[in-house]
Structures are given as structure tokens and as C-alpha cells.
């Protein structure tokens, strides 16, 4: 486990993180309010210069789940090849976390995607618009309470006749 030192150092700084390991992957659950500070510490002090991905899991109706959304941050140190997965839980009615665009500019589109699909707000994001769905779309389709076939948005278009155009 090459991440041992990083885990020990980060735990000393932020004791609230719950660390675990699964098949060689190091994972940590971070309290929502400490998220930005932990990410900043890992980038500045531990050399995690690459943000691989930001994604989200909706735990609605999931067994033994207490929180609604689990935000997942995957970080890599490109010098030591360490990889760490951090998770923060957020809940309705206003699920939001601070944006990490100031730390990694590449987070811009990743956060827009999470906003589009799950409706999680990113405070301080420079341009939080939809990225996949059309702008006039109102729902967040990857939420578990959104029906698979939608609410009729896909059929809400004008019909062209042969005589037009």
C-alpha cells in the first residue's frame, strides 16, 4: 500500500475522515464541511495534481444507506502513482458542496455533469450550466426517483409536415 503515508499524514491533519480499503484501493469518507480543505491539503501538501473524476451516486432506497447522495472524488498523484477515492455525503433539500474549480480547472465540466445529472450545486462554480441535456430540460435524470422513460420531454417537439420548409 503506497498510500499509507498519505493516509497517516492526512488523518493527523483531519481526524474526521473514515478510511477504508477495498481490493487495494484506498478510500475515505470526508465530512461535507471539511471537503474543500481536505482536497486542498491533498493537492498542495501531498502532490495530488490530477483530478481523475468527480461523480455521484444516488443512494435512494439503497439498503443500509443513511444519506441520499454520495459525491465521489478520485485523485491521483502523477509522481508517486498514488490514487485515492474520497467520498462526501450530501442530502436534500439543498445538496451542495464547494466547487473545486479553483484547485483543478478540469473540474469545471465534471461538476457541470454532476449538476446536470443529479442536481447537486457547486458553490463558487464559474459557469454552472447543463452540459449534456438541453438547456430547457428541467429534471435531473440520473436521480433514482426520475422515471427511466422520462416525463414526456422526449416528445415535446413541433411536428413537421411535408408541406413545410
Amino acid at each position, binding site marked *: 500500500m503506497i498510500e499509507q503515508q498519505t493516509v497517516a499524514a492526512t488523518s493527523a491533519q483531519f481526524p474526521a475522515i473514515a478510511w477504508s480499503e477495498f481490493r487495494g484501493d484506498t478510500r475515505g469518507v470526508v465530512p461535507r464541511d471539511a471537503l474543500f480543505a481536505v482536497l486542498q491539503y491533498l493537492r498542495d501538501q501531498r502532490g495530488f495534481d490530477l483530478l481523475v473524476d468527480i461523480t455521484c451516486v444516488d443512494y435512494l432506497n439503497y439498503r443500509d444507506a443513511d444519506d441520499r447522495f454520495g459525491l465521489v472524488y478520485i485523485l491521483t498523484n502523477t509522481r508517486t502513482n498514488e490514487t485515492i477515492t474520497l467520498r462526501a455525503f450530501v442530502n436534500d433539500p439543498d445538496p451542495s458542496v464547494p466547487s473545486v474549480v479553483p484547485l483543478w480547472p478540469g473540474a469545471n465540466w465534471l461538476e457541470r455533469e454532476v449538476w446536470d445529472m443529479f442536481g447537486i450545486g457547486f458553490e463558487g462554480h464559474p459557469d454552472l450550466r447543463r452540459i*449534456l*441535456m*438541453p438547456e430547457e430540460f428541467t429534471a435531473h*435524470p440520473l436521480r433514482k426517483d*426520475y*422515471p*427511466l*422513460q*422520462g*416525463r414526456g*420531454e*422526449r*416528445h415535446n*417537439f*413541433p*411536428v*413537421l*409536415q*411535408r*408541406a*413545410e*420548409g
Partner: protein
Amino acid sequence: MALEVPENVVVSKLDELASWCRKNSLWPMPFATACCGIELMATGASRHDLARFGAEVMRFSPRQCDVMIVAGRVVMKMLPVLQRIWQQMHEPKWCISMGACASTGGVFDTYSVVQGIDRFIPVDMYVPGCPPRPEQLIQSIIDLQDKIQREGTISGREFLARQRQEPKRALVELPVISLPRGVSRLPQGVRVE
């Protein structure tokens, strides 16, 4: 007919001649969004050779095309683009819906995929398959050529007017017959004028 016609002269209608010219020089607009587009490319390439049917000049500008081949699934963000391209094409124009996804949505019965482009634009030919073989697409081109010859040189407005007339004609040709009380159906051989 008193006039002597030489052997190598064929008499026809001008309309038929125009349709014959149209059907043998189709210019496809490839609207390829998925794997059907690969089969569409194979159809245009040398092995299957769409040039044998006079439809090999694929142009990527709708202003230069007269048959749109929609190959692949169309999502709701793409549909306004599709409609706009269709409107930019000049008359006369036709549309081939290639593959299961373009025709019905296919396996993608989800919130973002349009369940058949014929809900929003007119379609002349449907090609089944997932994806269809190039032979199937060629068959649809041949069938489209037959349709062009059959329909003649009518504009879209005339086509729509003709379509509107059709239910009326059906009513005229099948008159409503009121039977006498107690009779449920006419005896065989009796005709009501």
C-alpha cells in the same frame, strides 16, 4: 396514329420523364449518428457500390441534397438539428429512416432518445435492422426510386393536399347505407344504389 414514329423513339409523359430523371440521380444527405452510419459508409463504398443506383454523391450540406438518410438514434438534443436540416433541404426531398433506432427508438427506450423520427418529420422509407445490411439500404433506395416514379412531380403542398383528400374519397366510395328496421344485413346479391 397517323404519324410515323421512328424505331428508336419512345413516347412518354413529361411528368414520367422528370420523375425518371429525379429517381436516378438521388443525392443523399447522410445524417449518421450511430453504428448505422458505418453500414451507410459501407453502402457507399466500392464493395456494395451505391453508385450503381445513381445515389453515390453524399453531400454534407443539406442545400445540395434531396434524400436524407437518418442512420442511428436521435436524442432530444439532436432533434431540433435534424428538423432544421430537413427544413434546409430543397424540394423535392425524401427521407429514409435507417435502422431500428431511427424508426422506433430501438432498445433505447429512455428519457433522452426520440422514439422514432417519424413522430416529428415525414419519412418515406423505413429500413429494419440493427444495423441493417448494406443490401437492405440498397433495397430501400430501389423502393424509394419506385415511389418517386409512382408519385410523379408533385410538391410537398400538393402531396399534403392529396393526403387530405384521401379520407374524403374513401367516404364517397363507401357510402353509408341505412337498412330497414329489423334487418341486420343485406341479403346476398341485393345492391343499394
